[in-house]
């Protein structure tokens, strides 16, 4: 229960009464709150406050970058590098936000991405792309991603297996299959139309970044404005209540996993375009990076809540951090240690916020 209880027999509040100051509402409800004053108050105390924390965290990382590498960090080129690097991981993390909001976890995102990248760049796939159109590569990657996600979803929802186990098996299996298909070799993507499209720029912005932005916008609408999103939160928040309200919990869970698979397919295409290769080593440990980004962003691992805006910030923070490390030639091992520490601190802070909000 909250720290503030409502007197049962107290005077009924007028419908337009401003909400109490200690109430922490979500940004979504803040946006539509009646009265500018109360909306502002909610904005400051609610999830916008948490988002403010994320903006601050990002700023700190940026300031560190500017201070320690004033000649190389604050350039247009470097900013675009960060964004390009962030986009593929960003799309995966957005997918991950849905699974976590639905009360599950997906450890197979990196492996599915690797498999999709390999499948879309085999000699056969590329020849078909040359013969018809490079869109066939896109379709291949999306289909591979969706199928893997669907298998995860069916096993979790109808096989009643823990998502942790199912997706762990998919992680191992999908990466193994990717190795078999590619013969553990890097497959160079040579389809020019594909490379031109995904490697291109629109108004100076890389297409990869635009895709990330579009996916984020679509995901925000999906989570916050559709029945699908509402039901995802209901299933993650209280699956039993959702079931007893007549929601098809199993089918919904399955669809959420398939959706993540599609996100991995999109990310695979972005990765192939950025590195011009499809390989079974793409997306190594991305499951952890994505979970870290989601959690840093403020989505609770217990399910029932999810914030796309937070996840986008989480990804940007991680990507900028990696960039700063790389500019200083920190070896990957040191980077890993530093990242580990930062993730722990971020989650600790987030728990404090959740505890103060009296959230689940």
């Amino acid at each position, binding site marked *: 229960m909250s720290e503030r*209880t*409502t007197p*049962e027999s107290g005077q009924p*509040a007028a419908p337009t009464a401003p909400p109490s100051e200690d*109430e922490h509402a979500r940004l979504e409800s803040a946006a539509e709150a009646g009265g500018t004053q109360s909306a502002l108050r909610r904005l400051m105390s609610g999830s916008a406050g948490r988002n403010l924390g994320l903006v601050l965290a990002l700023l700190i990382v940026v300031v560190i970058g500017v201070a320690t590498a004033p000649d190389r960090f604050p350039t247009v080129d470097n900013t675009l590098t960060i964004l390009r690097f962030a986009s593929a991981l960003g799309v995966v993390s957005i997918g991950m936000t849905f699974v976590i909001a639905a009360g599950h976890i997906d450890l197979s995102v990196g492996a599915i991405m690797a498999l999709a990248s390999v499948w879309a760049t085999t000699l056969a796939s590329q020849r078909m792309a040359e013969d018809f159109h490079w869109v066939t590569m896109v379709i291949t990657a999306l289909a591979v991603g969706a199928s893997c996600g669907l298998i995860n979803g069916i096993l979790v929802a109808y096989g009643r297996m823990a998502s942790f186990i199912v997706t762990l098996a998919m992680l191992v299996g999908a990466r193994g299959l990717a190795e078999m298909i590619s013969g553990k070799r890097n497959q160079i993507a040579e389809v020019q139309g594909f490379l031109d499209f995904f490697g291109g720029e629109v108004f100076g912005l890389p297409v990869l970044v635009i895709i990330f932005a579009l996916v984020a916008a679509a995901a925000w609408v999906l989570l916050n*404005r559709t029945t699908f999103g*509402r039901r995802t939160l209901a299933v993650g928040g*209280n699956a039993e209540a959702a079931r007893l309200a007549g929601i098809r919990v199993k089918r919904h869970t399955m669809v959420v996993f398939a959706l993540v698979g599609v996100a991995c397919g999109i990310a695979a295409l972005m990765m192939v375009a950025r590195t011009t290769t499809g390989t079974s080593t793409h997306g190594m440990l991305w499951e952890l990076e994505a979970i870290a980004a989601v959690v840093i962003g403020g989505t609770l691992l217990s399910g029932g809540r999810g914030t796309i805006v937070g996840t986008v910030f989480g990804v940007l923070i991680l990507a900028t951090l990696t960039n700063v490390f790389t500019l200083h030639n920190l070896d990957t091992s040191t980077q890993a240690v530093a990242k580990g520490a930062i993730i722990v601190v971020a989650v600790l802070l987030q728990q404090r916020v959740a505890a103060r909000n009296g959230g689940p």
Partner: protein
Amino acid sequence: MTDALLRMRGIVKSFPGVRALDGIDLDVSAGEVHCLLGQNGAGKSTLIKVLSGAHQPDAGTVEWRGENARIADPMAAMRLGIATIYQELDLVDGLTVAENIFLGQEMATAGFTRRWRTDRAARALLGQLGHPEISPNTEVGRLSAAGKQIVSMARALSHDVKLIVMDEPSAVLDKEEVARLFGVIRDLTADGVAVIYISHRLEEIREVGDRVTVLKDGRTVATGLPAGETPTSEVIRLMTGRTFEYVFPDRVERDDEAEPVLRVSGLSREGEFQDVSFDVAPGEIVGLAGLVGSSRSEIIETIYGARKSTSGTVTVHGRRLRPGSVRSAVSAGVGLCPEERKSQALLMAESVANNVTLATLPRFAHASFIDRAAERSAATEQVNRLDIRPQDPSREARTLSGGNQQKVVLGRWLLTGCDVLLLDEPTRGVDVGARSELYDLIRELAAQGVAIVMVSSEIPEVLGLADRVLVIREGRVVHTGPAGEIDEHQVLDLVMEGSVT
């Protein structure tokens, strides 16, 4: 009977909105079986929790073997020699019998467990309890409910125990197992151990008990009654009657000729209930009365499709519902307010509005995009209609009081325009003031033509609210009749002994 082992005086314990214990006195002597009787909500469970250190009393004194004692936590209770065997047995299924018995006090040398010694000690305890056939190496998860109970008792005995509290131990046992349990209890008391025994079955209390204490509304109404000689009518008289009166709205005239909306016939679910049949007409309220564990909730949930029936049918408006399909029930116009609001009905972190519209989302969506203005106005309408306070649909459900949370769940089903409403313990966790408001609401819904099936542990509530009452005992309907023609004594007699005396 020798000296007083335990003396509790004036124990008071309040929870937000409820005074669970309001001055309890209890005396237990060494070597006796002391039975606690009382209706649901009389305070038995809270009293046990105070005794076992799980709750701290707000006022009152506990004297243990002549000295003032403060039972600060379960460890303190254990040190004093008080062991509690809960209904929900607290064993680790994956460990062996011996490991469970000595959990937390393992025999070990430098961190290495002494398996052989542990097994021998466990075997001795099990033998002492008359169950040498239970092997110390068996995984506890493989034991029957009765076997688990024996392991719990062995664990209690592994400490130097003076008092064992048993909370409805017979609920999970068959007749033969109960007889063996009584044998164990007699052996224990012969050794000077005292037992506090809680059961709803009067015949058991007669057989094994020495003295009886009756609780009602958090107070001791009678203590030290001889278990064997006190007549049933006297016990029931003490358990019933209220210190506060429920106020129920007047019944309205109904059209008795109306075609039933809900028809349940021969509904059974293996191991839970058998052959339940009844009809509910529009505007009628049918109440199911019975003890906890009599499968009332299971019946309701099976009608709703949340559990799958093994035989029998449920029809709504003549249409047969698919067994085990909630969606089939919902689309036929059935709604359920489940027993556990928080875990089965509400999204605690979501707003009142989102909770109210959960079952009707597609109605507010165009191509699955939610029309939030329409959703909000529908939710606001329910908030106003049901007088949910505070009147703010954007407030998170968890910040509401129990009564208002229940209204949120009601509002969800009213929005679907349902014809059949299943209410499982609608006033649980709702304080007295808000109850009469819910009663009015339920009656009002019936007056509007909704067919209502209601389950409640509080017999006066069933009798006061329902038009017709079904009395359930151990999964069977033992009585059906108009609510006006049966009183609380008779119902209690039916659920406890199975016959009207």
